[in-house]
């Protein structure tokens, strides 16, 4: 039967010959594990960096975004389920783009970064790895948009090629992970710490789902943990939930909930806490944590005002704002 054990993510699937891992795209053929979506993306797009969201990493720049089918989590509220919850063999859209071709496409489109995103890039690890190497040689930055459900050794190896990550911390609650995402919390926290240790720029997103993960005491604990383990300058994005996929029974996150969560995280010591999926909200913008001056004004993904100094400091009080600005 030649079973293999995938060591990439905490599931560590034992896969018999002819079977796939839980992610659907890593398949055991003849006793060898195949990454079937290597060089076969199903989604390619050019986005603003703010869409990732990364607010403290080359703001306003264009990012070449790529994804393949498959995912190692199964979130009931997945917004890309048509991509993430399918195997490669059932995809209608499969482009052919080897790593070097992908980098060339990004260069042709004048993109300064490539984002591995939409589904979870953990499941197309080899494609990410090889593309990252070529991209870096070509002067293109690599951005990893992930849920962070990956084992530490492969992540640490990949980090040498990564410049930034937005990692989805879905809740500060293991039970939530088990019931809503089909995963566990601990590996995600470990991944966040690994990113920090390896010098990758980290921003964190937390999608607030009414009644499921919007408890203020949990949000406070999460913010405290981020401040302690990743640094108080780590940007935290609270994102508004919209009912979709298998979670249509709950309403969109009320504005009050987002406001309270933001206030709680700021009170817990974080300096840069944002509100996403609510265009025009004051929480879209960056303020100096010392004097409260507006530094970067955003409406949705668009930058409408940029007052940050070239040295990444507040022009009024000189406070350094953490980030990679240019």
């Amino acid at each position, binding site marked *: 039967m030649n*079973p293999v054990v995938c060591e990439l993510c905490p599931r560590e699937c034992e896969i018999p010959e002819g079977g796939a891992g839980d992610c659907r795209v890593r398949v055991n053929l003849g006793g060898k594990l195949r990454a079937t979506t290597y060089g076969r993306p199903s989604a390619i797009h050019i986005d603003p960096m703010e869409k990732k969201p990364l607010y403290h990493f080359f703001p306003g720049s264009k990012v070449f975004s790529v994804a393949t089918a498959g995912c190692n989590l199964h979130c009931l509220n997945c917004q890309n389920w048509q991509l993430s919850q399918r195997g490669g063999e059932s995809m209608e859209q499969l482009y052919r783009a080897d790593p070097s071709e992908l980098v060339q496409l990004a260069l042709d489109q004048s993109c300064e970064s490539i984002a591995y995103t939409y589904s979870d890039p953990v499941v197309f690890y080899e494609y990410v790895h090889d593309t990252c190497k070529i991209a870096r040689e070509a002067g293109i930055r690599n951005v990893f948009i992930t849920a962070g459900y990956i084992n530490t050794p*492969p992540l640490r190896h990949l980090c040498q090629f990564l410049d930034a990550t937005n990692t989805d911390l879905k809740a500060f609650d293991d039970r939530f992970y*088990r019931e809503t995402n089909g995963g566990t919390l601990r590996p995600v926290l470990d991944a966040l710490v690994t990113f920090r240790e390896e010098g990758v720029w980290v921003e964190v997103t937390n999608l607030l789902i009414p009644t499921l993960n919007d408890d203020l005491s949990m949000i406070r604990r999460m913010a405290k943990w981020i401040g302690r383990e990743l640094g108080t300058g780590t940007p935290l994005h609270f994102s508004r939930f919209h009912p979709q996929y298998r979670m249509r029974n709950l309403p969109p996150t009320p504005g009050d909930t987002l406001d309270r969560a933001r206030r709680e995280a700021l009170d817990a010591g974080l300096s840069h806490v944002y509100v996403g999926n609510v265009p025009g909200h004051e929480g879209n913008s960056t303020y100096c944590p010392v004097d409260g001056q507006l530094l970067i004004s955003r409406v949705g993904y668009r930058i409408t005002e940029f007052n940050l100094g070239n040295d990444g400091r507040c022009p009024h009080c000189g406070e350094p704002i953490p980030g990679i600005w240019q």
Partner: protein
Amino acid sequence: MRLRRYFRHLRDFQLLGLAAVTLVFIGMFLASRPDPSEARGSSWRKVDLQRLQQRLGAGDLSDHEAVWYHNRPETVMEGRDRGPGQ
């Protein structure tokens, strides 16, 4: 006392007892089931192998060998590193 009298009128203590025992067993069964997300190595999936082979043959998909895996039982693949570049 009033409650006992009520149940005596129903004359189905045995039935209630049976239902309670059944519920206890159901509860114990549910509690003893391993959480699929916790069970390592168990969460593989069946794939439409014929379709997969067709799309591999057509070049729609890739047969690129993955890294970060080992064969079962614990025999590391000959001549292959466990991680890229290591």
